[in-house]
């Protein structure tokens, strides 16, 4: 019987010719990651295992990302605990000033690759699926055991296939495709499932837009958001891979739980209204509410292509006098390149607050927390009540062009409303 992409990769990692949905398997992992929020718990559990060393220090990463630069004493203690463990183990570690949002940094530095099985103590680990990497988020205890043994138990997920057709409009990208999809199937529409993304519309996207799509698979309940590597993927991978990789493809007769087809030729930029990523509406139908803040950044939309897009809209314009526009390049590399290209200057001249890399604002951690009643247009991934601050604040999820346009307009707005 034919296998899906997820089934093929899992079979290869448990030494079997074939696996089927529902089976529980013990699976070899190629890479394990955690960050400053989840690593302290994972390390504490690791110490209970009676194991001295991680299974392979070059396959275990600890990335300061969420509360960096350290926001308070408690966060600093957590960061220190993680750093000391990482250095003692000789594991993969990046200090602040080189680090970045974990899910932007690790692929960009060639640590996670096509054909890998990767587990991470962060729900957005699924981002790497865009490379054809079976990457999924877990909790700290799972990650502690995977760090020790180099393997993990998994239930083989059923696969839902998503096929995207048609050309994309001027201001439409990966964010709009995934918000549209989540709006269609709901926040549990792919619960326990592998999402497998296909279609010529994906071929139009650069690697960054593809990361955005896979990144939000978890927002539909998905275990992974997989794509088959193509020329764009391999060009990206070749330039940075630290070890061998392997390209898997699904069998033509693979068995899918469901196949969903989308015509994207009329897709508009999408906005997810408060307070669920599934509340997705086309921009033309979104209310033009007044806003207090814009956040451009995160593992979803804080990459170079995202900053270029936002800068294109905001260049030569000013952020509305009532609005804070917070721009956070998602890694130090992105920051440096954006600096060289003049993007950071463009943002600063427009009146944006440009910050160093952190996950902070996305999760209401710090560097842009919302007060009661405040509204934010954000390029991040979640808009649950209280996600970015006070439980009665509101988050509108959108792509970077819409976010930048909204910053200029002082209300939810599309790029054409401010650039024409």
């Amino acid at each position, binding site marked *: 019987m034919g296998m899906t992409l997820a089934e093929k990769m899992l079979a290869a990692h448990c030494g079997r010719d074939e696996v089927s949905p529902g089976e529980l398997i013990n699976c070899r992992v190629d890479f394990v990651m955690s960050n400053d929020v989840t690593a302290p718990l994972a390390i504490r559990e690791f110490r209970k295992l009676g194991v001295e060393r991680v299974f392979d220090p070059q396959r275990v990463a600890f990335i300061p990302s969420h509360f960096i630069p350290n926001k308070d004493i408690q966060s600093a203690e957590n960061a220190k605990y993680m750093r000391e463990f990482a250095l003692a183990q000789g594991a993969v570690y990046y200090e602040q000033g080189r680090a970045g949002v974990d899910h932007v940094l690790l692929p960009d530095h060639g640590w996670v690759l096509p054909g890998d099985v990767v587990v991470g103590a962060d729900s957005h680990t699924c981002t790497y699926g865009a490379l054809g990497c079976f990457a999924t988020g877990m909790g700290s205890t799972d990650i502690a055991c995977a760090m020790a*043994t180099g393997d993990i138990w998994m239930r083989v997920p059923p696969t839902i296939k998503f096929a995207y057709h048609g050309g994309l409009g001027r201001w439409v990208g990966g964010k709009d495709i995934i918000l549209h999809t989540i709006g269609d199937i709901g926040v549990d529409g792919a619960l326990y499932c592998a999402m497998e993304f296909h279609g010529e519309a994906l071929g139009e996207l650069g690697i960054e837009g593809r990361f955005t799509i896979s990144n939000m698979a978890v927002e539909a309940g998905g275990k992974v958001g997989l794509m088959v590597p193509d020329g764009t993927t391999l060009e990206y991978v070749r330039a940075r891979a630290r070890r061998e990789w392997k390209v898997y493809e699904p069998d033509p007769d693979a068995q899918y739980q469901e196949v969903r087809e989308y015509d994207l030729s009329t897709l508009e930029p999408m906005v997810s209204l408060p307070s669920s990523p599934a509340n997705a509406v086309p921009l033309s139908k979104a209310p033009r509410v007044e806003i207090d803040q814009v956040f451009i950044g995160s593992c979803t939309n804080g990459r170079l292509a995202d900053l270029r897009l936002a800068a294109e809209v905001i260049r030569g314009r000013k952020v509305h006098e009532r609005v804070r526009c917070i721009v956070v390049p998602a890694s130090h590399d992105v920051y440096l390149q954006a600096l060289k290209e003049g993007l950071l200057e463009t943002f600063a001249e427009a009146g944006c607050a440009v910050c160093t890399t952190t996950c902070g604002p996305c999760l209401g951690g710090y560097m842009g927390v919302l007060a009661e009643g405040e509204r934010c247009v954000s390029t991040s991934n979640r808009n649950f009540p209280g996600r970015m601050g006070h439980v009665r604040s509101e988050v509108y999820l959108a792509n970077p062009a819409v976010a930048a346009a909204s910053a200029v307009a002082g209300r939810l707005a599309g790029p054409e409303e401010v650039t024409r």
Partner: protein
Amino acid sequence: MSLRGHVHKYGANVDTDAIIPARYLNINDAEELAQHCMEDIDAEFVGRVRTGDIIVATTNFGCGSSREHAPLCIKAAGVSCVIAKSFARIFYRNSINIGLSILECDEAVEGTEAGDELEVELESGAVRNLTKGKTFQAKPYPEFMLELMRAGGLVEYTRRLAGKAS
């Protein structure tokens, strides 16, 4: 193992930000986290919950972040079991791993109101609503997960395996 307690009932898609907001994620101590459990969705929960109580919710309970702080703080708040129609997958794994009992049972969720007293037998999956005099049957656990739970969670299970190997 038999669990008994009163019900705190919630709807669909209770996310991890509702269970434990990110502003508390620099705390690693479960007891301290428990002081803020469900704070943004049910501010009275912490004052109301008694040891042994049971959370009942509809679909996709625990969606969102991978933070293990979520099941840890529910457990430390004294909750003995969470019953839902479905769980987000990371929350499901985390709960089994840290020893928070969770069950999937549509009928028990439909047939239970806030304040009802429930008795739950984990191995058989029987859920008795003592207030309403009804019994429901949850989906049984796969054998492997029962093994994990009998071992006392994933760490103890892995520790034993690692001990055997060396």
